[in-house]
């Protein structure tokens, strides 16, 4: 699809630093409330209850403002804001340590090979092994983007901006990083994987189990689940097919993570069978290619150097509550130095001579199809 100049989203997309990623604060409650209610059943990691959401925002604000040593309990919520209207158009989050108060359960994909030379048979059997491997890893959470921006490059900012924040505060996060994705379920929240596995141990639908367990950690549920590995060939076909399958709403954030170098083959959500991606933080693409650059000058793109031809970057500045990130093209002015458009520098609150963090966007900017 070619960019359509009459399409507001396309124009916005082509505009450097149109959207800003920044820490969410208590003042973002109305915007996040709208997002919480826009999300589909079963994939909601933002509470819909106003008081709970406010509490979460308060916790996040405290985490961003804290200078103390990290306890691991912190959650960080970011919002994607339209720099023109201040409207909240997306959010994303980080949980410093998965299962902080308790164990964090996953299924690990394993394969057992059994052979009988006498019978001429070699069997490779897929099993799901309940494990706590991901306990304590840092979790990427709460990804949501307004549908009007889904086909643009801005979801990249929403997802990858978090990595730049972690890179800035290495000591507050784990060496390994993971992200859960919702698995297959229908409109009513019914999941074929849950029906074949969890339901046998709960006698109830997953949404019902979620409601019953209330705010308790998922490990409460997991204590009821079978501890022995599950032999996949013994599951009904629909459940087998759901293993590692994404809910369609998760495709966009999932693809961004896969492009980052996350591994999607090893772990599953124990309830709906959705893939839980995982990686060593230092090996992620955005982290490996992250550079610290000096702003040499504030220069408007010239006709000889149009913004649309210059390489777009994920740009971030500041730490703690002052963190800000956006997407914009930069032009090189010398070793380790770049020129920024004044407006972009304004959004990032940078002056000439100051440093910022940058990593190439590497995703087509003007092509509406292009997030792959």
């Amino acid at each position, binding site marked *: 699809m070619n960019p359509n100049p009459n399409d507001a989203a396309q124009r916005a997309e082509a505009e450097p630093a149109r959207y800003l990623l920044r820490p969410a604060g208590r003042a973002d409650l109305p915007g996040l409330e709208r997002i919480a209610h826009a999300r589909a059943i079963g994939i909601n990691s933002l509470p819909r209850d106003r008081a709970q959401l406010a509490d979460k925002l308060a916790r996040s604000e405290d985490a961003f403002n804290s200078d103390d040593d990290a306890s691991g309990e912190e959650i960080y919520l970011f919002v994607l804001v339209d720099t023109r209207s201040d409207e909240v158009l997306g959010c994303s989050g980080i949980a410093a340590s998965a299962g902080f108060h308790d164990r964090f359960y996953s299924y690990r994909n394993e394969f057992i090979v*059994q052979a*009988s030379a*006498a*019978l001429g048979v070699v069997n490779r059997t897929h099993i799901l092994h309940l494990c706590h491997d991901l306990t304590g890893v840092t979790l990427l959470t709460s990804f949501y983007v307004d549908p009007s921006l889904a086909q643009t490059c801005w979801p990249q900012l929403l997802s990858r901006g978090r990595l730049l924040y972690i890179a800035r505060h290495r000591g507050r996060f784990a060496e390994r990083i993971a992200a859960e994705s919702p698995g297959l379920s229908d409109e009513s929240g019914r999941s074929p994987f849950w029906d074949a596995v969890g339901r046998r141990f709960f*006698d109830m639908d997953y949404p019902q189990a979620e409601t019953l367990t209330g705010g308790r950690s998922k490990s409460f549920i997991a204590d*009821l689940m079978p501890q022995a*590995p599950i*032999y996949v060939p*013994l599951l009904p076909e629909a459940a087998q097919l759901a293993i590692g399958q994404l809910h369609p709403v998760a495709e966009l954030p999932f693809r961004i993570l896969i492009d980052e170098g996350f591994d999607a083959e090893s772990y599953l959500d124990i309830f709906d069978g959705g893939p839980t991606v995982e990686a060593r933080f230092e090996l992620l693409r955005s982290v490996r290619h992250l550079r610290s650059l000096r702003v040499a000058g504030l220069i408007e793109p010239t006709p000889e150097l149009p913004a649309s031809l210059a390489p777009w970057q994920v740009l971030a500045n500041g730490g703690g509550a002052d963190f800000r990130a956006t997407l914009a093209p930069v032009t090189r002015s010398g070793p380790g130095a770049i020129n920024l458009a004044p407006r972009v520098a304004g959004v990032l609150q940078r002056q000439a001579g100051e440093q910022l963090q940058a990593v190439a966007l590497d995703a087509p900017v003007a092509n509406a199809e292009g997030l792959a």
Partner: protein
Amino acid sequence: MMLARPMRADDAAAVQTLQQRGGLAIPGVALRDGHDDIVWLVEDRPDGRLLASARLVAAAGLDEPLASYHVGCVVHAARELQLFHRLRTLYLSHDHTGASALTDVAVAPEADATAVLPLLARAVLLWIAEHRERYAPRLIAPLPGVSDATGTSPFWRGLGQHFLAADPAQALATHGRGWKAHASALMPRHPLYASFLPAAAQAAIGQAHPVAASLFQVLRDEGLRYENHIDFVDGGPILEAELDQLTAVAGSRRARLALVDTLPPDAARHDVLALGDSPRLRRLDGIWIDGRFLALREQAQESNWHEGLPVHVALA
């Protein structure tokens, strides 16, 4: 009159025919032959017609693995959710390694199983009692599991088939009786939750095939019990017992045969295993007194049993 005796070489063809006509196991489920196996037969006298047979294995699972599922129980509970689940588990085990085994039971279709099988069981148990040191502390007796209208086992179809895509009867024909030990190497080694199996497979756990109803009853009467082990192929129950706790073993006695013309009034029906060169078991009226077993001369002579013959007897 019926009589039980060990199989001779010239019985081979007749035993094979009997196994085909009246074998109680689904083909392919039986234990493999061992070195010290004795096949016991029940025959009708005087015509010598074969009525039943069974194999007594001295020690099973020593040459190759003898696998079965142990049916266990785990409880998953969450008081806050008012959930209390008792779940059956299946764990592939070799718990019966070294046990003695009674297997390959066959009964002629025209024979009365309720009359023939007690004699067969007694022959085996008195033989063990007489030769106690040759046999293990524990005796197992696998019973055939249920099969559906097509003759296939729902337990195998719901479980084993996923790990070995073969029909047990076909596998037996292709690979011989050792196929089962090889097949067990392909079965799941982690505990299984029975609730993951199809309903028909779950229902087959520990259920004996109706053809084995009489055998089940006879072995129960002898004191064997289902102790939560099943055949890993068809899910049939494995009955078992500590041999020394069985009445036929603990309550049986050695004696010398004493032939009399009149029995005392407190004489009773006994199972009498005559020892010597050609062991035989039959039911006789008699009484054990001070190491002698008094039996009627007339009845004993039907079997050419003579005064002073060493016997092993138990109340019938």
